[in-house]
């Protein structure tokens, strides 16, 4: 187990290095730089800027000093565009926000999805089942950039119940719409996966045996069916979590939450090399750790798996 974890962490380092070098080169190869402005600057002003941000050095040296800054001081450098902020500042501000609504959305998606899927399977071929299947398919195909403006029109403009955007950590009324917009389609996917794997488990021999022995229905389900039925859901969680973090850009745009999703897209468009690299590395690291975490949970649920 420990060896497995260490092995996986060892892969993490070359992965991140690859990610850094790849995105760095990609970014620098793009036309236009962080200081390309619609209003052209005199060359001497541009030269001063390039000197200040080290863009006048050879590329390998820039990569090296960037990596060294991270390794030695955990310093991701200054933002090239938000000039009175460092990348650390920007991530420290945006990441907790994204993580909060992302995490809550994740929990909502998992809890609601598993419940919906399990109930649908247990009530197979009843009106409840059809209803659950209908919801989950509908929710899966409705893009969240359609849902988000509808939510604001309904809950803010018409009903006046919720603030139309912004972010407060201490006021969950700001969280509700972002969470709905972000979690719905994942909730639906989880419900679908859960339903079909639950159906399979319920039809398997050991459940039939347990039922035949006369154990009450709900106990069989909770004790014996739920855990094995969760396996496919768990293997879906890793990609789902990462997709939620990357999908957060829509939440940031529509609900002005100030998270890192928008920061990333902006940094790519603005050629804010430093912020773009910082966010990419952060999300890359998060992906690696979350996949590892999921694998550990997987082993815990399914004792057949050996590391």
């Amino acid at each position, binding site marked *: 187990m420990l060896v497995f974890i260490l092995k996986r962490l060892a892969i993490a380092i070359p992965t991140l290095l690859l990610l850094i070098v790849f995105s760095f080169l990609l970014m620098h190869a793009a*036309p236009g730089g962080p200081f390309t402005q619609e209003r052209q600057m005199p060359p001497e002003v541009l030269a001063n800027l390039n000197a200040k941000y080290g863009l006048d050095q050879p590329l390998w040296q820039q990569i090296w000093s960037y990596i060294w800054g991270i390794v030695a001081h955990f310093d991701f450098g200054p933002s090239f565009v938000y000039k009175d902020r460092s990348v650390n500042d920007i991530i420290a501000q945006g990441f907790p926000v994204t993580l909060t609504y992302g995490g809550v959305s994740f929990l909502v998606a998992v809890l609601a999805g598993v419940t919906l899927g399990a109930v649908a399977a247990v009530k197979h071929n009843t009106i409840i089942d059809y209803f659950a299947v209908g919801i989950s398919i509908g929710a899966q195909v409705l893009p969240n950039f359609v849902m988000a403006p509808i939510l604001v029109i309904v809950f803010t403009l018409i009903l006046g119940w919720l603030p139309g955007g912004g972010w407060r950590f201490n006021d969950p009324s700001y969280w509700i719409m972002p969470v709905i917009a972000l979690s719905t389609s994942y909730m639906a996917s989880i419900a679908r996966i859960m339903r079909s794997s639950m159906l399979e488990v319920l039809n398997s021999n050991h459940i039939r045996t347990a039922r035949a022995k006369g154990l009450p229905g709900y106990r069989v389900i909770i004790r014996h069916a739920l855990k094995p039925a969760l396996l496919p859901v768990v293997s879906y969680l890793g990609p789902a979590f990462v997709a939620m973090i990357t999908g957060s850009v829509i939440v940031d745009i529509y609900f002005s939450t100030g998270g890192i999703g928008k920061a990333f897209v902006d940094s790519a468009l603005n050629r804010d090399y430093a912020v773009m690299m910082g966010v990419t590395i952060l999300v890359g690291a998060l992906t690696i750790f979350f996949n590892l975490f999921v694998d550990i949970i997987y082993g815990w649920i399914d004792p057949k798996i050996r590391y």
Partner: protein
Amino acid sequence: MKLTTALSALALFVAAPAAFAANVPEGTKLAENQTYTFWLLDAIKSLDPQINTDVEGSDIVRNLFEGLYNEDGNGDLVPGVALDHDLSDDGLTYTFHLRPDAEWSDGKPVVAGDFVYAWHRLADPATASEYAWYLQLMQVKNATAIVEGDMPVEDLGIKAIDDHTLEVTIETPLPYFPQMLTHGSTFPVREDVIAEYGSNWTKPENLVGNGAYTLSKHILGERVEMDKSDTYWDADNTVITHLTALTINDVNQGLTRYLAGELDRVDIPAGQYPRLKEQYPDQATSLPFSCTYTYLINLSEKGPEALKDVRVRKALSYAMNRDVVVDNILQGGQKPAYNWTHWATAGFEMPDIDYAHWSQKERMDKAKELLAEAGYGPDNPLELTLNYNSSEDHKKIAIAAQQFYRPLGVNLTLNNMEWKVHTDRMQNQDFDLGRYAWCGDYNEASTYLDFFTSYSGHNQGHFYNDEYDAVMKESKTAEDPQPLYTKAESILNEEMPLIPIYQYAKVSMIAKDIKGLPTQNVMQTWYGKDIYRVAQ
């Protein structure tokens, strides 16, 4: 001998000697709640006056800091930190008299040295300000050499005679120099604060400003909050106590939230003004705003041969149906443009432009005729590419342009690019026609017309014309430059290095109890201290 001039400023000094802050008419009943919430499209890039480059950033900077002069609701100068100034006979030395009661938000007095430090900082290559060229534009003595690193910053033409007297030396007389001082990059900053906190000095807990408001919160991409400053010299006349700026990246979303009462001012998305004006006549407003939207024509060596022919350029300009653009696409009170300088620019006299009076049919006929003379037409179609950067509105206009040109036998290929790529291509002359917009830095025609001089550095279409250069050079020293500006516009009309399309309007929803926002200022410069909210 010194001459006391204050140009346009003078008139106002006499007219309204008392309060320059919120000018609340006698008998107005003010609301209990004196807050003002406005909309920002994007995160504020910087709150540092010498670093900021954006219009939105300037709106915040103007409330946190104060320069030598401010603008009133008509765009005229009113005293800020400076009460007035003297100008030497040769027109090169300005002596500003600073008000003795100006204070920073930590209680220290605002002195001439703070301006000297700020301007040195702006020019200093180590600061690497993107707006360092503004000092060059203002013709401040030695600015160029300092920015290039050939001279120490101490040689800049600015000097503190004493704490309340500031002397600025410029290289050539510049009649509109005082107007340029309302720009944020010339605002004073505190040397000791910057020395202590470095680039963190603009964080709410560190920032020391001399404006009417102090920064209480700045969450990047979410909100900026400002509270009334008690140390501001005119705090007694400042009515609004709290300013909030909310970042909303989607303009339609902004409008929804305005309608839900979360904002006091928001921009109206293109095409929605007529409907909103009908529904909310007391809230939907459209005011002239100093920017011009154009397609630049590439005249450089890299440009297509056909565009070197002035007949082709004229044909392209004539065929552009500006009425459709403003009346059917934008629908927000923008004006069709047949020239370069915004029509509402102070003192600007519009030249008589022939095709402005024609009907669109006449323009099309003339365009066909000119193209035929140049050898193009439906049988020999002219293939051109239009570059524009991604945005709903640019896209709509480009698609319409494609349709306008089709009957001429001009096939326009649309080349939509992401903004940085577009800019890069434009600056390297990799385009045939390119979308561009220019916004005035100050309220005077030269801010537009300097663009097309061969030495301007912005002239991306490489329009080089000796007569034009000569006219613009002459205007710098002329007693009355306006006829020369009109002449310059006529040259542009003859040579057509651009296809002017429309001149901007600021189209916004403003809450009906908010008063005191500028109505006659084409720069749309506003100050929180001038605003007040009336009781309903």
